């Protein structure tokens, strides 16, 4: 079982997502939540890096955090899967532990 990494800071304002991507192994899961959801948007400069990482890692974004910030799942890049809170719980259960990049 792989590790689930969570990150909650905007990749346009901090280097946390970058560190997370650098230090995760192929096969890991990465969940973008809170302000990290901006990184999954088609429209931003950060999404190319994320699309690249998605080639050997599963990347998820938390839907309620997207909606709160005025964005819809259609605005998320194809490489990233939108999950709800139930999906978050499933991810935690499916991975052997959770690493939070706070």
């Amino acid at each position: 079982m792989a590790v689930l990494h969570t990150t909650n800071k905007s990749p346009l304002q901090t280097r946390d997502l970058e560190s997370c991507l650098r230090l995760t192994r192929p096969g890991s899961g990465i969940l973008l939540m809170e302000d990290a959801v901006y990184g999954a948007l088609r429209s931003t400069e950060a999404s190319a890096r994320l699309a690249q990482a998605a080639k050997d890692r599963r990347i998820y974004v938390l839907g309620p955090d997207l909606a709160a910030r005025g964005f819809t799942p259609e605005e998320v890049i194809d490489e990233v899967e939108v999950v709800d809170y139930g999906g978050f719980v499933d991810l935690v259960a499916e991975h052997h532990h959770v690493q939070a990049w706070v």
Partner: protein
Amino acid sequence: MSDTQANEGGDRKVKRFMFVNRKAPYGTIYALEALEVVLIGAAFDQDVSLVFADDGVYQLKKGQQTKGIGQKNFSPTYRALEDYDIEKLYVERESLQARGLSPDDLLVPVRVLGSAELSVLMDEQDVLLSF
């Protein structure tokens, strides 16, 4: 002494207050706290302007639906600022572009300014408050 006289006369100087918003909403408390202080400033009849730069531009994104995260959606307050005579809202063009946003994505009318113009405006203020 009426407010008008006080503002136009020399005995009570109206100061220029600029609030610089650089953080996304909801992830931290900064955006909401800035709004609270802005409204206080307006109550004292000061010359108030707001700047949105970096992730601060996300504060003005249309369509915020916060029910799912159990937080108050304070974005309608930006539309109410007009009622408090706060009409100077500036957005940095570079920040909008970096996020793939246009003025149409924002929930209030704003003036979009480049960094150079914005820095001149900042220099002209009496008080700058950063959030």
